[in-house]
C-alpha cells in the first residue's frame, strides 16, 4: 500500500504531469464558473484530448478538472446568484445575499476554505472507509432513499420566509414540476402534451438557470443600480475573515463534510442533494436558523464543504466497484475504459498507484483553486459593483449558452427563459424559489424510490419499517416534525412570555 501511495504521489508531481494538473484545474474552474457547464462537460472535453497520454497523466488531469469545478461554481453562485453547476444551488441561498450586503469577498473566502478543506475531509474519509464501503452501498436501497428524501421534504416549511402558505405552495409546485415526463416505474408519459422534448421532463439545469440566473438578470435590469446594494470597499482582510469563518463554524463544517461524503458514497444521490441537504441540516440545527437564506455565512460553510467532500465520497464506489457515485464519476469511468483501465474491483487491485494519483490530483487541485480564489476574491468581489445594466445581458448570454451548450437543444433555452420570468414573478409576489427547487430536486427521487420500494416489497408499505436504516430515518423524521411544530413554537412562546412577564 505504501508503495502505491508513493508511486501515486510521484506520478502526480513528477515530470510534466503537474502542468496537466494545472491545466485541468484551471479548465475545471472555468467550466465551474460558467453556468450550465460543469464537471461532466469538462471531463467530456478532456477525454478525447487525453487520448494519447499515459493513463496516469490523463487521470491526473481529469481528476484535477472535476476537483476544481465545485469551487468555480460557487463563485458565480455567490456573485451573480447563478449556480455555476447544479450542486452549487444551496450556495446561492446565503452566498448571494452576502454579496448584496457587500460581503462578497468574505463569501468567496469562506467558500474557498470550505471547498478545499471539505475536499480534504472527503478524501480522508474515502481512505478510511474503504473497508466498509461495500456495507454502505449494500444498505442503501430505495426504501432508505425515500425516507432520507422525506426527511428533507418535511423541512421545507422551515424555509418559507415571509409567507408560510406561499412557501409551502412553492414546494408543492416544485414537486409537481418533477412529475413531468416519463415515469420509470409505470412506463407512463405524464404531462408531456405530446412532445418528445418533455419526455425527459423538465431538466434541472435549464430550470435552475432560469429561476435563478435569468430572473436575477431581469431583476437587475428593472431595478437598475448594482448587484451589491451596499457600496463597500473590498479588502483582502474581508477574504481572510471569510476563511476564518470555516474555523468559527467547525461543527457545521465537520457535519456538512461528513454528510456530503456520505451522500457522495451512495450511488444514486447526486451533488445537488448533498449540497441542499447539508444546508437544510445546518439550518435545522443552528441557533441562527431564522437567518439562513438571508446571508448567514454558516450556510455557505455548510453548502460548500458538502459540495466538495461529496467528490471524495463519490470516488469510493467508483474506484472500488465501478459503480459511479455521481454523474461526473460515470464520465470518469468512461475515461477509464477509453484508456484501457479496468472498471470494477480490479481497478484497486491492479492500479492502486493510479487510484492514489487521482486522490492526490483531487487534493492538490482543490487547494490550488482555493488559493487562486482567495487571492483574486477581492477583485472578483468588485464585480458586484458593476452596473446591473451591463451585468444583466452578460448573465443572459451566459445563461442561454449554459442552457444550450450541453444538449444542443434550443428548447432548453426556452424553458430557462420561461422559468426566468416565472422566477421573477415569484420573487415579486413573495413565493419562495428556494422551496420550489427543493421540491423539484427531491420530488423525482422521492416518487421513484417510493414506487420502487413498493414493487420490491412483499409487505407493501411496511417495507419502510422493516429495514433498519429506513426505519431509523422514519423515526428521525417524526422527531423532526415534532421538534419543528411543537417544541420550537413552545420555546418561542415561553421566551416571549418571559420577556413580557
Amino acid at each position, binding site marked *: 500500500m505504501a508503495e502505491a501511495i508513493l508511486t501515486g504521489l510521484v506520478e502526480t508531481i513528477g515530470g510534466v504531469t503537474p502542468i496537466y494538473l494545472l491545466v485541468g484545474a484551471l479548465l475545471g474552474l472555468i467550466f465551474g464558473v460558467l453556468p450550465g457547464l460543469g464537471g461532466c462537460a469538462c471531463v467530456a472535453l478532456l477525454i478525447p484530448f487525453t487520448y494519447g497520454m499515459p493513463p496516469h497523466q490523463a487521470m491526473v488531469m481529469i481528476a484535477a478538472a472535476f476537483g476544481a469545478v465545485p469551487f468555480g461554481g460557487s463563485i458565480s453562485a455567490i456573485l451573480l446568484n447563478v449556480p455555476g453547476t447544479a450542486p452549487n444551488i444551496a450556495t446561492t441561498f446565503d452566498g448571494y445575499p452576502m454579496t448584496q450586503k457587500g460581503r462578497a469577498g468574505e463569501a468567496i473566502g469562506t467558500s474557498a476554505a470550505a471547498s478545499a478543506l471539505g475536499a480534504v475531509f472527503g478524501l480522508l474519509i474515502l481512505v478510511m472507509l474503504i473497508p466498509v464501503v461495500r456495507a454502505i452501498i449494500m444498505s442503501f436501497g430505495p426504501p432508505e432513499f425515500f425516507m432520507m428524501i422525506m426527511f428533507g421534504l418535511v423541512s421545507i416549511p422551515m424555509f418559507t420566509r415571509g409567507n408560510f402558505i406561499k412557501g409551502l405552495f412553492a414546494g408543492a409546485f416544485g414537486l409537481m414540476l418533477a412529475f413531468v415526463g416519463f415515469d420509470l416505474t409505470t412506463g407512463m408519459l405524464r404531462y408531456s402534451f405530446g412532445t418528445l422534448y418533455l419526455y425527459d421532463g423538465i431538466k434541472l439545469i435549464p430550470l435552475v438557470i432560469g429561476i435563478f440566473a435569468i430572473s436575477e438578470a431581469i431583476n437587475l435590469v428593472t431595478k437598475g443600480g448594482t448587484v451589491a446594494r451596499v457600496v463597500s470597499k473590498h479588502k483582502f482582510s474581508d477574504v481572510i475573515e471569510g476563511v476564518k469563518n470555516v474555523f468559527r463554524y467547525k461543527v457545521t463544517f465537520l457535519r456538512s463534510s461528513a454528510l456530503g461524503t456520505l451522500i457522495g458514497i451512495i450511488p444514486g444521490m447526486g451533488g445537488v442533494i448533498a449540497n441542499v441537504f447539508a444546508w437544510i441540516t445546518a439550518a435545522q440545527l443552528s441557533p441562527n436558523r431564522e437567518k439562513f437564506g438571508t446571508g448567514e455565512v454558516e450556510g455557505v460553510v455548510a453548502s460548500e464543504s458538502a459540495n466538495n467532500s461529496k467528490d471524495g465520497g463519490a470516488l469510493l464506489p467508483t474506484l472500488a466497484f465501478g459503480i459511479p457515485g455521481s454523474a461526473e464519476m460515470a464520465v*470518469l469511468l468512461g475515461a477509464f475504459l477509453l484508456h484501457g483501465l479496468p*472498471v470494477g474491483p480490479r481497478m484497486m487491485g491492479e492500479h492502486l498507484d493510479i487510484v492514489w494519483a487521482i486522490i492526490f490530483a483531487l487534493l492538490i487541485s482543490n487547494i490550488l483553486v482555493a488559493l487562486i480564489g482567495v487571492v483574486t476574491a477581492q477583485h472578483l468581489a468588485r464585480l458586484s459593483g458593476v452596473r446591473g445594466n451591463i451585468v444583466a445581458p452578460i448573465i443572459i448570454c451566459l445563461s442561454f449558452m449554459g442552457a444550450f451548450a450541453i444538449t444542443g437543444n434550443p428548447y432548453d433555452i426556452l424553458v430557462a427563459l420561461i422559468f426566468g420570468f416565472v422566477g421573477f414573478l415569484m420573487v415579486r409576489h413573495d413565493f419562495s424559489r428556494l422551496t420550489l427547487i427543493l421540491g423539484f430536486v427531491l420530488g423525482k427521487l422521492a416518487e421513484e424510490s417510493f414506487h420502487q420500494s413498493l414493487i420490491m416489497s412483499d409487505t407493501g408499505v411496511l417495507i419502510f419499517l422493516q429495514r433498519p436504516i429506513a426505519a431509523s430515518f422514519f423515526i428521525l423524521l417524526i422527531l423532526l416534525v415534532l421538534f419543528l411544530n411543537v417544541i420550537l413554537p413552545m420555546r418561542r412562546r415561553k421566551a416571549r412570555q418571559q420577556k413580557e412577564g
Partner: protein
Amino acid sequence: MKKGRLLILLGCIFLGMLLVALPLMAACAPAAKVEYPTQNIRYIVHSKVGGGFDVFSRALGPYLLKNLPRETNIIYENISGAGGAESYAMVYVAKPDGYTIGLMNVPGASVSPYIMPVKYDLSKFTYLGRGCRSIHGLFVNKKSPYHSLKDLQQAEIVKFAAVGIASTSYLMGIIAAKECGFNMGEVVQYKGGTATITAVVRGDTEALFMDMDSVYSRAKGELRPILTLDTERYALYPDTPSIVELGYPELAGLCNNKIFYGPPDMPAEIAKILGDALWKAVNDPGFIAWGEKADRAVRGQLKADEARELSLGWMQKLEKYKDLYPQK
C-alpha cells in the same frame, strides 16, 4: 457599330455559350470518383459521455479515421434525450451527405416507437454495419434459491429488476418470460445498468437480464448466472448453459446491437466508403485488443446489409410482443 463594341458583344455571347455549355459538358462527362470525406464527420452518440456506446465510439475513432480514404476529423455529439430517440430523430433529418453518422442501439431504437412519439422510421435509415453485439444472460443473487431455469419456471413469482421500461434488459425479460414460461411479476425499474446490477446484488430484487461483460467486471462472484442468451456457452461463464441447450433456440438472438447508421437516402458510393471503413475499423486487431483490455469484447461484426436485416427483423419481432408494453 464601332469595332470595340462589336468585340465586347462577341465576347459576351462567347461567355454566355460557355456558361451554358460547361455544365452540360460536366453532366455528360464520365462520373468522377466521389471525393469523400472532405470535411469533418459528425458522429452522434445517443448516450451521455462515458456510457458504453460513447466509449465504444470514441475508442473506435482513430481506427475509423485510419481506414477512410482521406484525412479528416470526427466530431462527437452526445444527444441523450428520450432514451436515444432524440439522437435518432436528429440523424433522421440530417443531410445525407455522409457527414452525419451515428451509433444506434437495436433493439432500443426499435422499442421506442411503442412507448413515445418518435420522429423517425427505422426502415428508412441507411445502415452501415454492426460494430458489436452483446451477450446477455440471466443472473440471480447468489444467495437466492434458484440454480437453473427449471427453478425459475417452478417458482410462483420471480422479482426482476430492469433498466427502465424502454431498455433491452426489460424487453429480454418479457420475451423470455413469455416463451420460457416463468412469472416475472412486476418489474422494478432502475436508472442505469449499474444501479440495476447493484439492486440484485443487494437482494432488493432477485433476478435480471444483463450484459454478461458488465456483470463480469462489476459483480463477478456476486451474481449467479442461470443461462446465456446465445447459441453456445460464453467463455467467461463456462458452466452456464446456453439457451439453445435449454431448448429455446429462438431466443438465442436476444442481445444488444451496436449498429452504425446514417440518414435515409445516403448516396451509395459514400455509404460504401463508410461501410468499408467501419468494417475494417471494428475488425482492427488494435481495436479488438482495446475491447479485451476494457472488458468490453468486440464481437459479432456485421456488414451493412446484414445490419439492416437485423434491424428490420427486430421491428417485426416487436410487433409480436407489443402488447406487453403499456400502450401509448
